[in-house]
């Protein structure tokens, strides 16, 4: 029970008026940062980091982590309202969140997303509180082969989800991989597909593609259909919170699965974005209402949001105990720790007890404060949809342009965003699924690097992926997931054959 005592000590540190005020400020800023695609959580924290040098480390990290929570909450807002993922990990939230908004249920989608975020984060904080040393040791087991196995599992859990033509799915996913390979190859240090163009050095960044494909593409579709976002005139009712919460207990298994997936991905460190995709994929596979996913199912919002937040939060654990950041934002926080004179690593929990437990306590408090704040603002967020379309549309293009620009500080990316916008529109029209493209774009590069690192280590022997129980287990699970649709089809076929045989 040492942890509990230490935690209460931490609460004593975090529960001062000054710190609560910092949390409120941080979360407000974070929500703003999360809403604007131009300011990612990592950006926001990096920009504000220097301001915190004059504060005591505990206060500073409370402010910065609050920004982080706020950004995690805020990313969902634009995904649901406008189909623009403010953060990479909100992409999966658009799949069902935006259709819900189109059906006039924007408020329910928002409440569902925020609540899911909260549950995911709290689950991960509990894990950090009680299992930090064990979990840190587990993360050490991950070498290149294990990383590849996890990435493979993410893909596998997502394959075969589309309803459309399988060939269009393949084409879409492969395009994602091809785009991901542009730029510097991390394993050999050679430039690929750049054709001597300086603009291409950086490759196609995920956020640029996503802003174009989803945000601009959606604007084009809305314009074609007439001057409105469908279902924009949602009725605003103040009981949205209660209405939504009543539906949530039925999804407890989805919550649990997404929490586990999220924590796993945050620690290993796979990151929040793959976690959200995997959470969505698994929920769709296993939920009773899985067939309705993509048409505006609350469960389809809850699953990725829970996973993303569990991952985003547990990503702080490897940062604190190992010094490896599980997310870009964690990477910036890591820099901050060093500057405050704290050395992240195995000894942090021993030497800087006050700091660590103050931080952990602030994670609980920050999320509670954050949830209360964003829930009270739901009617306000949903009301944004009532702004006339002829104001919203160009304003969205403007904000998207800022978002695309800030990824690499390059105008080239803004042009690419427009190109991706047209592509997004065409794909939508012709039923090429977008999620496989996006997933391949975000994970393709990492998966390829891990695979090739593993090949270097094993001297080109593919058997390395089954060389130990951990890696082999994940790979086998991945294969099962990949062939699940085929297996299922086979089973139905067999059983029907059986029935026919018996009837005969």
């Amino acid at each position: 029970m040492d942890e509990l005592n230490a935690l209460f000590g931490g609460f004593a540190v975090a529960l001062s008026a000054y710190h609560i005020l910092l949390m409120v400020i941080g979360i407000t800023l974070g929500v703003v940062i999360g809403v604007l695609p131009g300011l990612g959580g990592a950006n926001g924290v990096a920009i504000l980091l220097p301001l915190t040098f004059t504060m005591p480390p505990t206060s500073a990290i409370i402010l910065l982590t609050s920004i982080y929570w706020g950004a995690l909450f805020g990313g969902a807002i634009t995904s649901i309202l406008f189909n623009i993922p403010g953060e990479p990990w909100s992409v999966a939230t658009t799949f069902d969140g935006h259709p819900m908004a189109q059906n006039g249920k924007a408020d329910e989608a928002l409440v569902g997303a925020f609540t899911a975020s909260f549950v995911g984060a709290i689950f991960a904080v509990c894990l950090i509180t009680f299992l930090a040393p064990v979990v840190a040791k587990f993360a050490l087991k991950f070498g290149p082969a294990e990383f590849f196995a996890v990435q493979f599992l993410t893909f596998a859990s997502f394959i075969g989800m589309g309803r459309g033509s399988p060939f269009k799915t393949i084409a879409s996913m492969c395009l994602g991989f091809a785009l991901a390979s542009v730029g510097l190859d991390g394993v050999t240090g050679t430039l690929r597909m750049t054709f001597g163009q300086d603009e291409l050095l950086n490759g196609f960044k995920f956020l640029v593609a996503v802003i174009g494909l989803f945000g601009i593409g959606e604007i084009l579709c809305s314009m074609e259909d007439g001057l409105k976002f469908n279902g924009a005139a949602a009725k605003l009712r103040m009981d949205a919170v209660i209405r939504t919460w009543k539906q949530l207990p039925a999804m407890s298994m989805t919550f649990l699965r997404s929490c586990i997936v999220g924590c796993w991905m945050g620690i290993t460190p796979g990151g929040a974005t793959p976690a959200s995709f995997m959470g969505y994929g698994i929920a769709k596979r296993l939920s009773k209402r899985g067939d309705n996913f993509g048409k505006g199912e609350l469960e389809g919002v809850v699953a990725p949001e829970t996973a993303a937040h569990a991952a985003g939060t547990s990503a702080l654990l490897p940062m604190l105990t190992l010094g490896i950041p599980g997310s870009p934002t964690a990477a910036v926080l890591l820099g901050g720790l060093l500057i405050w004179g704290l050395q992240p690593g195995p000894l942090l929990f021993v030497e800087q007890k006050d700091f660590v437990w103050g931080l952990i306590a602030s994670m609980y408090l920050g999320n509670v404060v954050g949830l209360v704040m964003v829930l009270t603002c739901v009617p306000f967020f949903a009301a944004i949809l009532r702004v006339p379309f002829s104001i919203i549309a160009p304003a969205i293009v403007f904000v998207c342009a800022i978002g695309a620009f800030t990824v690499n500080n390059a105008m080239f990316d803004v042009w690419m965003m427009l190109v991706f916008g047209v592509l997004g529109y065409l794909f939508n029209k012709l039923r090429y699924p977008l999620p496989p493209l996006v997933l391949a774009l975000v994970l393709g590069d990492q998966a390829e690097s891990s695979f090739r690192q593993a090949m270097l280590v094993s001297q080109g022997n593919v058997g390395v992926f089954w060389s130990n129980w951990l890696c082999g287990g994940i790979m086998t699970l991945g294969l099962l997931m990949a062939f699940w649709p085929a297996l299922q089809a086979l089973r139905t076929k067999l059983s029907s054959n059986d029935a026919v045989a018996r009837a005969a």
Partner: protein
Amino acid sequence: MIRTGASKARTIAIALAASACLTAPALAQQKWEPSKPVTLVIPAGTGGGADQMARFIQGVVQKHSLMKQPLIVINKAGGAGAEGFLEMKASANDPHKITITLSNVFTTPLGTGSPFNWKDMKPVAMLALDQFILWTNSEKPYKTTKDYVEAVKAGEDRQFKMGGTGSKQEDQIVTAAVEQQTGGKKFTYVPYAGGGQVAVQLVGNHVDSTVNNPIEAVGQWRAGQLRPLCIFDAQRSTYTAKVTEKEAWSDIPTCKESGLPVEYQMLRGIFTTKNAKPEQVAFYVDLLKKVMATPDWKEFMEKGAFNQTFMTGPDFEKWLTTAEALHSDLMKKAGFLATQ
């Protein structure tokens, strides 16, 4: 720095300026100050060594209000930093841009064929040199450099795995230099995305050794998970304060004295754009001197066991020329030069 418009303050300012002129007559030329925010371009991703140092400088400048205009930090990491350097090259006439370099100022154009050279920028100052240390996992039986080199020599070719950051960059160059001393036995070099990850991969025994910078692996060293074998510098480190219970940075032998004659350090330098005027360069030199005089900076240097060599002007340019030739030579020997 003096913000009040009162005449008293102005007199003090004049007095200060006068005394500055007296003590440093060489600086009597026209003073220049940035008229808009200064952008610090980081040719590397967030969270890395260069990024940490840049953001630290930004913080110190802000904390002690060393500059009237704000200092803005942006990352341009594309193409192993080529993107950031090309931006500096393209804005040759904008003195409000500075950049912080790592070894990629030499390795990226050589390794990828990107069209730039450090001469496309104006050198301001060398802030410090970052060290490289040969690390192994402390569970392994290699107590000294000699043990490890013997083991590599006795093993099969490519049996030993060296982890490092990036490909054809400093870590792999050091590895290639070490390989020349291992009796023809090569390492399998495994490139990772960041230094922190490399250290953890070593703790997890996924690689056999690394050449991490001190700051990347110090946490694991203090926790007894990693063992430093030797430092790739001509002299031992000058930091004598205990880092672990028993050892200080100065207790790590140099590689040369341990029978592995390899030396390599990484430049942490500041450059501005090519057409910057002398008074503009002087402003930045002055600013950096103020940064380096703060206690925060001294603490930062010690934490990362940096080699505190400060150089400006012709000294620095001479150093750069030598270092460029050295990199070109090392990379040619290792076969890392771009083929185009």
